[in-house]
Protein backbone atom coordinates (compact mmCIF):
# COMPACT_ATOMS: atom_id res chain seq x y z
CA UNK A 1 0.00 0.00 0.00
CA UNK A 2 2.95 2.33 -0.31
CA UNK A 3 2.33 2.84 -3.97
CA UNK A 4 1.02 6.28 -4.65
CA UNK A 5 -2.44 5.90 -6.02
CA UNK A 6 -5.28 8.14 -7.04
CA UNK A 7 -6.97 9.77 -4.07
CA UNK A 8 -10.32 8.23 -3.60
CA UNK A 9 -13.24 9.10 -1.41
CA UNK A 10 -14.76 6.71 1.05
CA UNK A 11 -17.94 7.43 2.89
CA UNK A 12 -17.63 6.10 6.37
CA UNK A 13 -21.26 6.00 7.26
CA UNK A 14 -24.01 7.03 7.72
CA UNK A 15 -24.59 3.29 7.83
CA UNK A 16 -21.38 1.89 9.15
CA UNK A 17 -20.67 -0.45 12.05
CA UNK A 18 -18.42 1.94 13.89
CA UNK A 19 -19.64 5.45 13.42
CA UNK A 20 -21.60 5.11 16.67
CA UNK A 21 -24.88 5.98 15.06
CA UNK A 22 -25.77 7.81 11.93
CA UNK A 23 -22.68 9.89 11.55
CA UNK A 24 -20.82 10.19 8.31
CA UNK A 25 -17.16 10.74 7.76
CA UNK A 26 -16.11 11.49 4.21
CA UNK A 27 -12.53 10.39 3.97
CA UNK A 28 -10.32 11.17 1.02
CA UNK A 29 -7.77 8.43 0.89
CA UNK A 30 -4.45 7.91 -0.73
CA UNK A 31 -4.17 4.18 -0.45
CA UNK A 32 -4.99 3.65 3.20
CA UNK A 33 -3.83 7.05 4.32
CA UNK A 34 -6.28 9.84 4.94
CA UNK A 35 -5.54 13.09 3.20
CA UNK A 36 -8.79 14.83 3.98
CA UNK A 37 -11.65 14.22 6.34
CA UNK A 38 -15.00 15.88 6.23
CA UNK A 39 -17.69 15.35 8.80
CA UNK A 40 -21.26 15.18 7.63
CA UNK A 41 -23.84 15.17 10.35
CA UNK A 42 -27.43 16.00 10.92
CA UNK A 43 -28.94 12.63 10.16
CA UNK A 44 -30.29 12.61 13.68
CA UNK A 45 -31.07 16.29 13.85
CA UNK A 46 -34.38 16.74 15.59
CA UNK A 47 -34.13 20.47 16.05
CA UNK A 48 -34.45 20.14 19.77
CA UNK A 49 -33.45 23.71 20.33
CA UNK A 50 -36.43 24.85 18.30
CA UNK A 51 -38.81 22.33 19.82
CA UNK A 52 -37.79 23.42 23.27
CA UNK A 53 -38.99 26.93 22.53
CA UNK A 54 -42.48 25.47 22.20
CA UNK A 55 -42.57 23.67 25.51
CA UNK A 56 -42.48 24.65 29.14
CA UNK A 57 -39.34 24.42 31.16
CA UNK A 58 -40.48 21.19 32.76
CA UNK A 59 -41.62 19.66 29.51
CA UNK A 60 -38.14 20.15 28.13
CA UNK A 61 -36.53 17.77 30.60
CA UNK A 62 -37.27 14.66 28.50
CA UNK A 63 -35.48 16.25 25.55
CA UNK A 64 -32.33 16.28 27.57
CA UNK A 65 -32.63 12.50 27.95
CA UNK A 66 -32.63 12.14 24.25
CA UNK A 67 -29.60 14.18 23.41
CA UNK A 68 -26.93 12.13 25.10
CA UNK A 69 -28.96 8.99 25.51
CA UNK A 70 -26.07 7.13 27.05
CA UNK A 71 -25.86 9.65 29.85
CA UNK A 72 -29.39 10.87 30.36
CA UNK A 73 -28.80 11.73 34.02
CA UNK A 74 -26.14 14.28 33.30
CA UNK A 75 -28.20 15.74 30.50
CA UNK A 76 -31.11 16.21 32.88
CA UNK A 77 -28.86 17.61 35.53
CA UNK A 78 -27.24 20.26 33.39
CA UNK A 79 -30.58 21.45 32.13
CA UNK A 80 -32.29 21.68 35.50
CA UNK A 81 -29.22 23.42 36.89
CA UNK A 82 -29.53 26.01 34.17
CA UNK A 83 -33.17 26.60 35.00
CA UNK A 84 -32.38 26.74 38.69
CA UNK A 85 -29.70 29.29 37.98
CA UNK A 86 -32.17 31.30 35.96
CA UNK A 87 -34.74 31.23 38.72
CA UNK A 88 -32.42 31.30 41.67
CA UNK A 89 -33.64 28.05 43.19
CA UNK A 90 -31.50 26.16 45.68
CA UNK A 91 -32.28 22.43 45.69
CA UNK A 92 -32.30 20.76 49.10
CA UNK A 93 -29.25 18.91 50.33
CA UNK A 94 -30.57 15.39 49.77
CA UNK A 95 -31.43 16.20 46.19
CA UNK A 96 -27.88 17.40 45.62
CA UNK A 97 -26.48 14.15 46.94
CA UNK A 98 -28.90 12.12 44.88
CA UNK A 99 -27.81 14.07 41.85
CA UNK A 100 -24.20 13.36 42.64
CA UNK A 101 -24.84 9.64 43.03
CA UNK A 102 -26.84 9.44 39.84
CA UNK A 103 -24.29 11.42 37.84
CA UNK A 104 -21.46 9.22 38.98
CA UNK A 105 -23.39 6.02 38.30
CA UNK A 106 -24.16 7.44 34.90
CA UNK A 107 -20.54 8.31 34.32
CA UNK A 108 -19.53 4.78 35.16
CA UNK A 109 -22.15 3.31 32.85
CA UNK A 110 -21.28 5.68 30.05
CA UNK A 111 -17.56 5.02 30.33
CA UNK A 112 -18.30 1.29 30.29
CA UNK A 113 -19.96 1.81 26.96
CA UNK A 114 -17.22 4.12 25.71
CA UNK A 115 -14.41 1.74 26.57
CA UNK A 116 -16.23 -1.32 25.33
CA UNK A 117 -17.06 0.28 22.01
CA UNK A 118 -13.54 1.63 21.77
CA UNK A 119 -12.21 -1.90 22.14
CA UNK A 120 -14.68 -2.93 19.47
CA UNK A 121 -13.32 -0.25 17.19
CA UNK A 122 -9.88 -1.62 17.83
CA UNK A 123 -11.23 -4.85 16.45
CA UNK A 124 -11.98 -6.88 19.55
CA UNK A 125 -14.98 -8.77 18.40
CA UNK A 126 -17.67 -7.75 20.92
CA UNK A 127 -16.05 -9.39 23.91
CA UNK A 128 -15.03 -6.31 25.92
CA UNK A 129 -18.24 -4.52 25.15
CA UNK A 130 -20.25 -7.49 26.34
CA UNK A 131 -18.29 -7.61 29.57
CA UNK A 132 -18.82 -3.90 30.03
CA UNK A 133 -22.51 -4.28 29.36
CA UNK A 134 -22.74 -6.61 32.31
CA UNK A 135 -21.89 -3.78 34.70
CA UNK A 136 -23.78 -1.19 32.79
CA UNK A 137 -26.88 -3.35 33.12
CA UNK A 138 -26.47 -3.48 36.88
CA UNK A 139 -26.28 0.29 37.02
CA UNK A 140 -29.31 0.56 34.81
CA UNK A 141 -31.06 -1.72 37.28
CA UNK A 142 -30.31 0.84 39.96
CA UNK A 143 -31.69 3.58 37.75
CA UNK A 144 -34.79 1.56 37.18
CA UNK A 145 -35.17 1.21 40.90
CA UNK A 146 -34.87 4.93 41.37
CA UNK A 147 -36.96 6.25 38.52
CA UNK A 148 -38.55 3.39 36.65
CA UNK A 149 -36.66 3.91 33.42
CA UNK A 150 -33.40 2.51 32.20
CA UNK A 151 -32.29 4.65 29.31
CA UNK A 152 -34.25 7.87 29.06
CA UNK A 153 -34.41 8.49 32.73
CA UNK A 154 -36.08 11.88 33.14
CA UNK A 155 -35.10 11.80 36.80
CA UNK A 156 -33.98 15.31 37.62
CA UNK A 157 -36.51 18.01 38.25
CA UNK A 158 -36.18 21.73 38.50
CA UNK A 159 -35.46 22.20 42.18
CA UNK A 160 -34.67 18.62 43.02
CA UNK A 161 -35.27 15.14 41.70
CA UNK A 162 -38.46 13.47 40.60
CA UNK A 163 -38.74 11.03 43.47
CA UNK A 164 -36.78 9.73 46.38
CA UNK A 165 -34.85 6.51 46.05
CA UNK A 166 -36.58 3.43 47.44
CA UNK A 167 -35.17 1.91 50.64
CA UNK A 168 -33.65 -1.03 48.80
CA UNK A 169 -31.60 1.27 46.62
CA UNK A 170 -28.78 1.93 49.07
CA UNK A 171 -28.13 -1.75 49.91
CA UNK A 172 -28.23 -2.66 46.23
CA UNK A 173 -25.84 0.15 45.40
CA UNK A 174 -23.48 -0.88 48.19
CA UNK A 175 -23.49 -4.42 46.95
CA UNK A 176 -22.64 -3.16 43.50
CA UNK A 177 -19.88 -1.00 44.94
CA UNK A 178 -18.32 -4.15 46.33
CA UNK A 179 -18.45 -5.81 42.92
CA UNK A 180 -17.34 -3.06 40.64
CA UNK A 181 -13.74 -2.55 41.79
CA UNK A 182 -13.03 -6.18 41.09
CA UNK A 183 -14.59 -5.92 37.66
CA UNK A 184 -12.68 -2.76 36.99
CA UNK A 185 -9.46 -4.52 37.85
CA UNK A 186 -10.50 -7.21 35.42
CA UNK A 187 -10.96 -4.71 32.63
CA UNK A 188 -7.71 -3.03 33.40
CA UNK A 189 -5.87 -6.31 33.20
CA UNK A 190 -7.81 -7.32 30.10
CA UNK A 191 -7.27 -4.17 28.12
CA UNK A 192 -4.64 -1.90 29.57
CA UNK A 193 -1.66 -4.14 28.96
CA UNK A 194 -2.99 -5.74 25.83
CA UNK A 195 -0.17 -5.45 23.30
CA UNK A 196 -2.51 -5.01 20.40
CA UNK A 197 -4.56 -2.27 22.01
CA UNK A 198 -1.39 -0.52 23.04
CA UNK A 199 0.00 -0.87 19.54
CA UNK A 200 -3.19 0.38 18.00
CA UNK A 201 -3.74 3.38 20.23
CA UNK A 202 -0.34 4.67 21.31
CA UNK A 203 0.74 7.82 19.58
CA UNK A 204 -2.44 8.00 17.49
CA UNK A 205 -4.57 11.12 17.38
CA UNK A 206 -2.31 13.17 19.62
CA UNK A 207 -3.56 16.51 20.86
CA UNK A 208 -1.21 18.74 22.79
CA UNK A 209 -2.71 20.63 25.74
CA UNK A 210 -2.64 23.87 23.79
CA UNK A 211 -4.34 22.31 20.80
CA UNK A 212 -6.91 20.63 22.96
CA UNK A 213 -7.86 23.93 24.54
CA UNK A 214 -7.83 25.80 21.26
CA UNK A 215 -10.18 23.26 19.73
CA UNK A 216 -12.52 23.58 22.73
CA UNK A 217 -12.10 19.89 23.43
CA UNK A 218 -13.36 18.93 26.85
CA UNK A 219 -13.81 15.98 29.14
CA UNK A 220 -11.57 12.94 29.03
CA UNK A 221 -9.99 14.14 25.79
CA UNK A 222 -8.84 17.35 27.40
CA UNK A 223 -7.59 15.56 30.49
CA UNK A 224 -5.80 12.96 28.42
CA UNK A 225 -3.85 15.82 26.87
CA UNK A 226 -2.60 16.72 30.32
CA UNK A 227 -4.93 19.55 31.23
CA UNK A 228 -6.27 18.83 34.67
CA UNK A 229 -9.59 20.49 34.04
CA UNK A 230 -12.68 18.99 35.54
CA UNK A 231 -15.72 21.09 36.27
CA UNK A 232 -16.49 18.89 39.24
CA UNK A 233 -13.51 20.39 41.02
CA UNK A 234 -13.08 23.62 39.12
CA UNK A 235 -16.64 24.76 39.62
CA UNK A 236 -18.24 22.22 41.92
CA UNK A 237 -21.93 21.62 41.51
CA UNK A 238 -24.31 19.23 43.25
CA UNK A 239 -22.36 17.82 46.20
CA UNK A 240 -19.00 17.45 44.55
CA UNK A 241 -17.41 19.98 46.87
CA UNK A 242 -18.09 17.67 49.79
CA UNK A 243 -16.50 14.53 48.44
CA UNK A 244 -12.86 13.74 47.99
CA UNK A 245 -11.64 12.52 44.63
CA UNK A 246 -8.86 12.95 42.11
CA UNK A 247 -8.80 13.99 38.53
CA UNK A 248 -7.14 11.55 36.21
CA UNK A 249 -4.75 13.13 33.73
CA UNK A 250 -3.02 11.64 30.76
CA UNK A 251 0.47 12.49 29.69
CA UNK A 252 0.58 12.40 25.94
CA UNK A 253 -2.91 13.13 24.70
CA UNK A 254 -3.13 10.12 22.41
CA UNK A 255 -5.96 7.67 22.03
CA UNK A 256 -4.50 5.34 24.58
CA UNK A 257 -4.41 8.05 27.20
CA UNK A 258 -8.05 8.88 26.67
CA UNK A 259 -8.91 5.32 27.27
CA UNK A 260 -6.68 5.12 30.32
CA UNK A 261 -8.14 8.34 31.69
CA UNK A 262 -11.64 6.94 31.32
CA UNK A 263 -10.68 3.80 33.20
CA UNK A 264 -9.13 5.87 35.98
CA UNK A 265 -12.18 8.08 36.09
CA UNK A 266 -14.33 5.03 36.63
CA UNK A 267 -12.27 4.27 39.73
CA UNK A 268 -12.73 7.80 40.95
CA UNK A 269 -16.45 7.52 40.32
CA UNK A 270 -16.54 4.53 42.59
CA UNK A 271 -14.69 6.53 45.20
CA UNK A 272 -17.19 9.33 44.99
CA UNK A 273 -20.08 6.92 45.10
CA UNK A 274 -18.82 5.22 48.21
CA UNK A 275 -18.48 8.52 50.00
CA UNK A 276 -21.81 9.73 48.75
CA UNK A 277 -23.63 6.62 49.87
CA UNK A 278 -22.14 7.11 53.33
CA UNK A 279 -22.75 10.80 53.58
CA UNK A 280 -26.22 11.07 52.16
CA UNK A 281 -28.45 13.13 54.44
CA UNK A 282 -32.15 12.67 54.81
CA UNK A 283 -34.63 15.38 54.16
CA UNK A 284 -36.73 16.75 51.38
CA UNK A 285 -35.80 16.06 47.81
CA UNK A 286 -37.46 18.99 46.21
CA UNK A 287 -37.33 22.71 46.73
CA UNK A 288 -40.47 24.77 46.63
CA UNK A 289 -40.81 26.40 43.29
CA UNK A 290 -42.10 29.94 42.81
CA UNK A 291 -44.77 28.80 40.45
CA UNK A 292 -48.31 29.62 41.35
CA UNK A 293 -47.82 33.30 41.72
CA UNK A 294 -51.18 34.42 40.45
CA UNK A 295 -51.48 38.11 39.85
CA UNK A 296 -54.40 39.61 41.67
CA UNK A 297 -57.51 39.36 39.55
CA UNK A 298 -56.08 36.73 37.21
CA UNK A 299 -57.67 33.46 36.43
CA UNK A 300 -55.94 30.50 38.12
CA UNK A 301 -52.53 29.92 36.61
CA UNK A 302 -51.68 26.56 35.16
CA UNK A 303 -49.92 24.65 37.89
CA UNK A 304 -46.67 23.93 36.12
CA UNK A 305 -46.17 27.27 34.53
CA UNK A 306 -42.69 28.02 35.70
CA UNK A 307 -42.00 31.50 34.56
CA UNK A 308 -38.40 32.44 35.20
CA UNK A 309 -37.62 36.11 35.25
CA UNK A 310 -36.24 37.76 32.14
CA UNK A 311 -32.58 36.98 31.82
CA UNK A 312 -30.15 34.35 30.74
CA UNK A 313 -28.16 31.62 32.39
CA UNK A 314 -25.42 29.24 31.40
CA UNK A 315 -24.91 26.14 33.52
CA UNK A 316 -22.23 23.61 32.80
CA UNK A 317 -21.39 20.27 34.29
CA UNK A 318 -18.85 17.58 33.64
CA UNK A 319 -20.78 15.00 31.69
CA UNK A 320 -19.04 11.72 30.85
CA UNK A 321 -18.24 13.18 27.46
CA UNK A 322 -17.03 16.56 28.60
CA UNK A 323 -18.38 19.94 29.39
CA UNK A 324 -22.13 19.85 28.95
CA UNK A 325 -23.63 23.30 29.10
CA UNK A 326 -27.10 24.68 28.75
CA UNK A 327 -27.60 28.26 27.75
CA UNK A 328 -31.10 29.47 28.48
CA UNK A 329 -32.60 32.83 27.64
CA UNK A 330 -35.89 33.67 29.27
CA UNK A 331 -38.30 36.36 28.22
CA UNK A 332 -40.52 35.77 31.19
CA UNK A 333 -42.79 33.37 29.37
CA UNK A 334 -43.51 29.76 30.26
CA UNK A 335 -41.15 28.46 27.56
CA UNK A 336 -37.50 29.29 27.10
CA UNK A 337 -36.87 32.05 24.59
CA UNK A 338 -33.66 30.39 23.54
CA UNK A 339 -32.47 26.96 24.53
CA UNK A 340 -28.97 26.09 23.50
CA UNK A 341 -27.07 22.94 24.32
CA UNK A 342 -23.32 23.13 24.42
CA UNK A 343 -22.89 19.49 23.62
CA UNK A 344 -19.48 17.96 24.29
CA UNK A 345 -19.85 15.28 21.62
CA UNK A 346 -20.36 17.91 18.97
CA UNK A 347 -17.67 20.29 20.02
CA UNK A 348 -15.12 17.55 20.65
CA UNK A 349 -15.50 16.67 17.00
CA UNK A 350 -13.88 20.01 16.16
CA UNK A 351 -10.53 18.37 16.62
CA UNK A 352 -11.39 15.25 14.64
CA UNK A 353 -10.08 16.51 11.34
CA UNK A 354 -6.90 17.66 12.98
CA UNK A 355 -6.42 14.21 14.46
CA UNK A 356 -7.38 12.08 11.47
CA UNK A 357 -5.57 13.69 8.58
CA UNK A 358 -2.41 11.72 7.93
CA UNK A 359 -3.36 8.49 9.67
CA UNK A 360 -4.86 5.34 8.20
CA UNK A 361 -8.51 4.41 8.01
CA UNK A 362 -8.11 1.97 10.85
CA UNK A 363 -6.65 4.73 13.02
CA UNK A 364 -9.44 7.09 12.09
CA UNK A 365 -11.95 4.60 13.41
CA UNK A 366 -10.05 4.25 16.64
CA UNK A 367 -9.76 8.02 16.99
CA UNK A 368 -13.45 8.44 16.41
CA UNK A 369 -14.04 5.78 19.03
CA UNK A 370 -11.82 7.64 21.47
CA UNK A 371 -13.77 10.86 21.01
CA UNK A 372 -16.78 8.86 22.17
CA UNK A 373 -19.53 10.70 20.41
CA UNK A 374 -23.21 10.10 20.88
CA UNK A 375 -24.88 11.10 17.70
CA UNK A 376 -28.04 12.11 19.49
CA UNK A 377 -25.99 14.76 21.17
CA UNK A 378 -24.00 15.74 18.12
CA UNK A 379 -27.06 16.41 16.02
CA UNK A 380 -29.58 17.26 18.71
Amino acid at each position, binding site marked *: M*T*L*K*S*EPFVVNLGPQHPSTHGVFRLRLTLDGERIIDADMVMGYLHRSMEKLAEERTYTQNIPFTDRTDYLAAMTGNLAYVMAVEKLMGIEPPERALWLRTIMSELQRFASHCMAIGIFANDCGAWQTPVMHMFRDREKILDLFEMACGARLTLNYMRIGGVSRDIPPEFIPAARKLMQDLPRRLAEYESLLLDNEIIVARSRGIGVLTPEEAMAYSVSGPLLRASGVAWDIRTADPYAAYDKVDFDIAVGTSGDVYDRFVVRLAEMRQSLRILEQALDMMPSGPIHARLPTATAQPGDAPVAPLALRPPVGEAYARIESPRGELGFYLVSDGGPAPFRFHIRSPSFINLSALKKMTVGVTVADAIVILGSVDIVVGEVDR
Partner: protein
Amino acid sequence: MDDTGTVIAFWLLAVITVGSALMIVAVRNLIHAVVFMMVSFVGIAGLYLTLSADFVAVTQVLLYVGAISVLMLFAIVLTPGGSRDNAETFLRLPALALTVLLGATLAYVAIDTDWSLADRGGFTDTASAIGDALLGKYVLPFEIASVLLLAAMIGAIVLVRPEASIEEAEE
Protein backbone atom coordinates in the same frame (compact mmCIF):
# COMPACT_ATOMS: atom_id res chain seq x y z
CA MET B 1 0.32 -41.70 -24.10
CA ASP B 2 -2.83 -43.40 -25.16
CA ASP B 3 -4.80 -44.22 -22.04
CA THR B 4 -8.26 -42.78 -22.27
CA GLY B 5 -8.02 -40.55 -19.22
CA THR B 6 -4.98 -38.70 -20.50
CA VAL B 7 -6.43 -38.25 -23.95
CA ILE B 8 -9.66 -36.82 -22.61
CA ALA B 9 -7.71 -34.62 -20.22
CA PHE B 10 -5.45 -33.38 -22.98
CA TRP B 11 -8.22 -32.40 -25.31
CA LEU B 12 -10.23 -30.77 -22.56
CA LEU B 13 -7.25 -28.80 -21.30
CA ALA B 14 -6.07 -27.89 -24.77
CA VAL B 15 -9.48 -26.51 -25.64
CA ILE B 16 -9.64 -24.57 -22.37
CA THR B 17 -6.14 -23.20 -22.76
CA VAL B 18 -6.37 -22.19 -26.39
CA GLY B 19 -9.95 -21.02 -26.05
CA SER B 20 -9.23 -18.72 -23.16
CA ALA B 21 -6.04 -17.50 -24.86
CA LEU B 22 -8.17 -16.47 -27.81
CA MET B 23 -10.67 -14.90 -25.43
CA ILE B 24 -7.90 -12.67 -24.10
CA VAL B 25 -7.73 -11.24 -27.59
CA ALA B 26 -11.46 -11.02 -27.97
CA VAL B 27 -12.84 -9.58 -24.74
CA ARG B 28 -13.17 -5.85 -24.41
CA ASN B 29 -12.61 -5.55 -20.69
CA LEU B 30 -9.05 -5.67 -19.48
CA ILE B 31 -9.90 -7.31 -16.16
CA HIS B 32 -11.83 -10.00 -17.96
CA ALA B 33 -8.81 -10.51 -20.18
CA VAL B 34 -6.65 -11.08 -17.12
CA VAL B 35 -9.19 -13.55 -15.79
CA PHE B 36 -9.07 -15.45 -19.06
CA MET B 37 -5.32 -15.39 -18.88
CA MET B 38 -5.52 -17.00 -15.47
CA VAL B 39 -7.77 -19.72 -16.85
CA SER B 40 -5.29 -20.23 -19.64
CA PHE B 41 -2.45 -20.56 -17.15
CA VAL B 42 -4.39 -23.10 -15.13
CA GLY B 43 -5.02 -25.02 -18.33
CA ILE B 44 -1.31 -25.03 -19.09
CA ALA B 45 -0.66 -26.31 -15.59
CA GLY B 46 -3.09 -29.11 -16.36
CA LEU B 47 -1.21 -29.85 -19.57
CA TYR B 48 1.99 -30.09 -17.56
CA LEU B 49 0.27 -32.63 -15.35
CA THR B 50 -0.63 -34.75 -18.36
CA LEU B 51 3.08 -34.61 -19.19
CA SER B 52 3.75 -35.91 -15.65
CA ALA B 53 5.58 -32.69 -14.82
CA ASP B 54 3.96 -32.19 -11.44
CA PHE B 55 6.56 -29.89 -9.97
CA VAL B 56 6.44 -27.56 -12.93
CA ALA B 57 2.65 -27.65 -12.89
CA VAL B 58 2.44 -26.64 -9.26
CA THR B 59 5.06 -23.95 -9.77
CA GLN B 60 3.05 -22.67 -12.72
CA VAL B 61 -0.05 -22.28 -10.56
CA LEU B 62 1.91 -20.77 -7.72
CA LEU B 63 3.73 -18.19 -9.79
CA TYR B 64 1.57 -17.41 -12.79
CA VAL B 65 -1.87 -17.62 -11.21
CA GLY B 66 -0.94 -16.60 -7.71
CA ALA B 67 1.64 -13.94 -8.42
CA ILE B 68 1.93 -12.62 -11.95
CA SER B 69 -1.79 -12.37 -12.63
CA VAL B 70 -2.31 -10.64 -9.32
CA LEU B 71 0.47 -8.22 -10.20
CA MET B 72 -1.33 -7.44 -13.42
CA LEU B 73 -4.61 -6.90 -11.63
CA PHE B 74 -2.79 -4.62 -9.24
CA ALA B 75 -1.26 -2.68 -12.09
CA ILE B 76 -4.67 -2.20 -13.67
CA VAL B 77 -6.21 -0.99 -10.45
CA LEU B 78 -3.31 1.31 -9.67
CA THR B 79 -3.71 3.06 -13.01
CA PRO B 80 -7.35 4.03 -12.69
CA GLY B 81 -7.24 6.76 -15.30
CA GLY B 82 -5.68 4.46 -17.88
CA SER B 83 -8.06 2.92 -20.34
CA ARG B 84 -9.63 -0.24 -19.02
CA ASP B 85 -10.49 -1.49 -22.47
CA ASN B 86 -8.58 -4.07 -24.32
CA ALA B 87 -8.50 -2.40 -27.73
CA GLU B 88 -5.98 -2.90 -30.47
CA THR B 89 -3.74 -0.34 -32.10
CA PHE B 90 -3.71 0.42 -35.81
CA LEU B 91 -1.26 -2.46 -36.23
CA ARG B 92 -4.08 -4.88 -35.90
CA LEU B 93 -4.18 -6.33 -39.41
CA PRO B 94 -0.44 -6.63 -40.01
CA ALA B 95 -0.11 -8.23 -36.61
CA LEU B 96 -2.87 -10.64 -37.42
CA ALA B 97 -1.24 -11.61 -40.69
CA LEU B 98 2.15 -12.05 -39.11
CA THR B 99 0.68 -14.05 -36.27
CA VAL B 100 -1.25 -16.40 -38.49
CA LEU B 101 1.80 -16.93 -40.65
CA LEU B 102 4.02 -17.61 -37.69
CA GLY B 103 1.51 -19.92 -36.05
CA ALA B 104 1.07 -21.88 -39.26
CA THR B 105 4.81 -22.17 -39.76
CA LEU B 106 5.38 -23.34 -36.22
CA ALA B 107 2.60 -25.87 -36.43
CA TYR B 108 3.84 -27.11 -39.76
CA VAL B 109 7.35 -27.51 -38.43
CA ALA B 110 6.08 -29.28 -35.34
CA ILE B 111 4.07 -31.75 -37.33
CA ASP B 112 6.46 -32.23 -40.19
CA THR B 113 9.70 -32.69 -38.32
CA ASP B 114 10.75 -36.17 -37.41
CA TRP B 115 11.55 -35.80 -33.71
CA SER B 116 13.76 -38.44 -32.20
CA LEU B 117 11.06 -39.75 -29.94
CA ALA B 118 11.70 -41.99 -27.02
CA ASP B 119 8.81 -43.34 -25.02
CA ARG B 120 10.28 -43.61 -21.60
CA GLY B 121 6.95 -43.25 -19.79
CA GLY B 122 6.06 -40.54 -17.34
CA PHE B 123 8.42 -39.16 -14.74
CA THR B 124 7.83 -40.39 -11.25
CA ASP B 125 9.51 -37.97 -8.89
CA THR B 126 10.46 -34.79 -10.64
CA ALA B 127 10.82 -32.57 -7.59
CA SER B 128 13.91 -34.16 -6.12
CA ALA B 129 15.50 -34.67 -9.54
CA ILE B 130 14.95 -31.01 -10.41
CA GLY B 131 16.35 -30.06 -7.05
CA ASP B 132 19.45 -32.12 -7.66
CA ALA B 133 19.86 -30.62 -11.12
CA LEU B 134 19.42 -27.05 -9.86
CA LEU B 135 22.05 -27.42 -7.19
CA GLY B 136 24.31 -29.64 -9.25
CA LYS B 137 24.61 -29.24 -12.94
CA TYR B 138 22.76 -25.91 -13.12
CA VAL B 139 24.06 -24.26 -10.00
CA LEU B 140 25.56 -21.32 -11.87
CA PRO B 141 22.33 -20.40 -13.71
CA PHE B 142 20.53 -20.92 -10.44
CA GLU B 143 22.69 -18.34 -8.72
CA ILE B 144 22.40 -15.98 -11.67
CA ALA B 145 18.63 -16.31 -11.55
CA SER B 146 18.60 -15.42 -7.90
CA VAL B 147 20.71 -12.35 -8.60
CA LEU B 148 18.33 -11.47 -11.41
CA LEU B 149 15.38 -11.75 -9.07
CA LEU B 150 17.09 -9.53 -6.54
CA ALA B 151 17.90 -6.98 -9.22
CA ALA B 152 14.33 -7.04 -10.50
CA MET B 153 13.00 -6.57 -7.00
CA ILE B 154 15.26 -3.63 -6.28
CA GLY B 155 14.51 -2.18 -9.68
CA ALA B 156 10.77 -2.41 -9.16
CA ILE B 157 11.04 -0.79 -5.76
CA VAL B 158 13.21 2.03 -7.07
CA LEU B 159 10.86 2.64 -9.99
CA VAL B 160 7.70 3.07 -7.98
CA ARG B 161 9.22 4.83 -5.03
CA PRO B 162 7.20 7.96 -4.22
CA GLU B 163 8.75 11.08 -5.69
CA ALA B 164 9.18 12.64 -2.29
CA SER B 165 11.51 9.94 -1.07
CA ILE B 166 13.61 10.28 -4.22
CA GLU B 167 14.01 13.95 -3.54
CA GLU B 168 14.87 13.22 0.05
CA ALA B 169 17.47 10.75 -1.09
CA GLU B 170 18.94 13.29 -3.45
CA GLU B 171 19.20 15.81 -0.70
